[in-house]
């Protein structure tokens, strides 16, 4: 793959251990790809971290204006397109945003490579229909794409998309499904209309999370984690609480370590890494 790419995430100081895990797990599988962490709240000693710290005031006045409008969660989500734009401004050809509660478990180069021809890369919550409608309906309220992994190329169309997304979430990044809003995520549904060169990531090993775990076969062979027989590249822990390790996510109570099968091993490894990275409740 030609050109340079970089990865970024967003975390508040009290979630720094999550940021460290996503960064160090990424670095284990990729060498020489810069990793940026936007610290959306608090101050830290930046020199001791595995990532390059980005401060909100580096993103320009847009970030400043949002701080008073939003609570911490809304604010951190709304910063996503601004951070991606900032990374591209540093001279990278492609940027991948990964949400903080994630562990990179394999090579993400194939996702970045999609952006050689595509302007934007998104991962759907579901790759195929479910048997029952209930979870499909819930996902329609949240957005068909998951905001945990978003890729963008430094092209005219990519830039236009980020600029539009940033403008929308600057004022409309709340939880209000009845109004057609779900933080930054529902807006991504419009990418199918607005972005001609949209890559829909169909690798089942990318962005594995509680919303698709029931349909994906996770197996563990020594250090290797497989999903549907292929390599697991990015595992997501949205809603996971390392202090309540028996549950997978607060969003889906029925999913527990007991019924997760081999995926429970992945959660256990994630928890170990979090504790090593200084997890505090």
């Amino acid at each position, binding site marked *: 793959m030609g050109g340079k790419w970089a990865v970024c995430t967003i975390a508040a100081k009290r979630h720094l251990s999550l940021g460290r895990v996503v960064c160090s797990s990424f670095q284990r599988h990729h060498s020489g790809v810069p990793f940026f962490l936007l610290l959306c709240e608090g101050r830290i000693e930046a020199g001791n971290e595995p990532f390059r710290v980005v401060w909100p005031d580096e993103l320009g006045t847009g970030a400043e204006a949002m701080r008073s409008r939003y609570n911490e969660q809304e604010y951190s989500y709304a910063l996503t397109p601004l951070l991606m734009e900032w990374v591209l401004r540093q001279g990278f050809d492609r940027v991948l945003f990964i949400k903080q509660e994630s562990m990179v478990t394999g090579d993400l180069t194939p996702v970045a490579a999609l952006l050689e021809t595509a302007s934007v890369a998104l991962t*759907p*919550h*579901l*790759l*195929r*229909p479910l048997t029952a*409608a209930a979870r*499909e*309906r*819930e996902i*329609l*309220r949240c957005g*068909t*794409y998951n905001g945990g992994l978003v890729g963008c190329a430094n092209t005219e169309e990519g830039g236009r998309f980020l600029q*539009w997304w940033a403008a*929308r979430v600057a*004022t*409309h990044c709340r939880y209000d*499904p*009845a*109004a*057609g*809003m779900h933080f930054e995520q*529902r*807006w991504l*549904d*419009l990418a*199918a*209309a*607005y972005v*001609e060169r*949209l890559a*829909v990531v*169909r690798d089942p090993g990318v962005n594995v999370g509680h919303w698709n775990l029931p349909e994906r076969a996770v197996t563990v062979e020594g250090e290797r984690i497989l999903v549907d027989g292929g390599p697991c590249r990015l595992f997501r822990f949205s809603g996971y609480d390392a202090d309540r390790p028996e549950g997978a996510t607060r969003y889906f109570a029925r999913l527990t370590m007991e019924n997760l099968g081999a995926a429970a091993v992945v959660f256990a490894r994630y928890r170990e890494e979090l504790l090593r990275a200084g997890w505090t409740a």
Partner: protein
Amino acid sequence: MDGMTAAGTIVAKNYLPFARVLGESLRRWHPELPFYVALVDEPEGLFDPSGEAFPVLALAELGIPRLADFCFRYTRREAVSAAKPYLLRRMLDMGHESVLFLDADMEVLGDLGPLLERVAGRPLTLTPHTLGPGMGVDAELNVLQCGVFNGGVAGARETEETRGFLDWWAARTREYCRYSIEDGMHLDQRWLDYAPSFVPGLAVERDPAYNVAYWNLYERPDAGRWRLFHYSGFDPMEPGRVSRYWPSMQMENTGAAELFARYAERVLAAGYAETRTWPYAFDRFANGEAIPMALRALYGRLGRVAAYFTDPFGDEMRAWAAETGVMDGDRDAAMWRRAAEERLVKLQEANVLLAEQQAELDTLRNALNGERERATWLEGRAAMFERAAAERLALLERSAGRG
């Protein structure tokens, strides 16, 4: 094109004139293209389907399962929308290689050739409401509430991928095709948001010529390029108003005032002043009494309990509705829930009983099959013995003769 491609629309009989105008406009540009109209309604003697310029597909021909339940749970608008994947499937079943659904309130203004070619080449073809931002945040939120793609155009080609998607879409609209935005539902349309995820071969039609409507006029100012216009929410009886769905839009700002005026005339000439007063066949109980909206909506939410009523249009449902106050407009939800729960308990008891009987039946069936197999085996053995005995007999007879 030689019948490999076909187009179709769906109406209740009050909208028949819209289908007539669409059919005429389609014939003008594509006289060879078969055009079907599915009737989600009953003619009730008010018109003769065989007298129309197009084949009318009866509701029962669309393959919608448990039709009475379907007709009872939905309003007219919901039922017309929910039938869409069924019509697409039906037209494929008829042997057309590729099929194009068009909303009845559309008019063909130019050559649809490039669109039809795309439809013929891709598993699924959809048109987004708009091709880019520009309407502002409120209009965009409205699109997110209604669905990224407009359901007025849907093209499908005979492929396995297409069938898989249509089967799923049909299953969803069969149960979840309400107008209920807070539930993430907007008739059949929000389900299409899954198309980019579920159909890798999806074609997003980006030619601004197609599905031009009030929501995208701002990005398509060149009227000379319009080929397929969508008069969504336009009422020919009130030709000065662009759309009932966007009351603030002024006709003089559309750049299409003449087009709207001419369309209103055409729909009226096709009989709309009369048909608009025609009743919807599924608005009444079997005894002619009107079905209250509240009852319909509640019935739609009953889920599996609804199966208790074998004929929702019958006396039992009417009596129940009267008993619970819904017939008088008393929308006591708690009372409804209690009544529904009672039914649910009964239904669950019945289900348990049914499951037990089913299991017993399965055991008996297994035993019977075992006996059958044994009987067949014994028959085979008997035949073998018989043959052996006959051979032996013949041998004995021959040796007796020689002796």
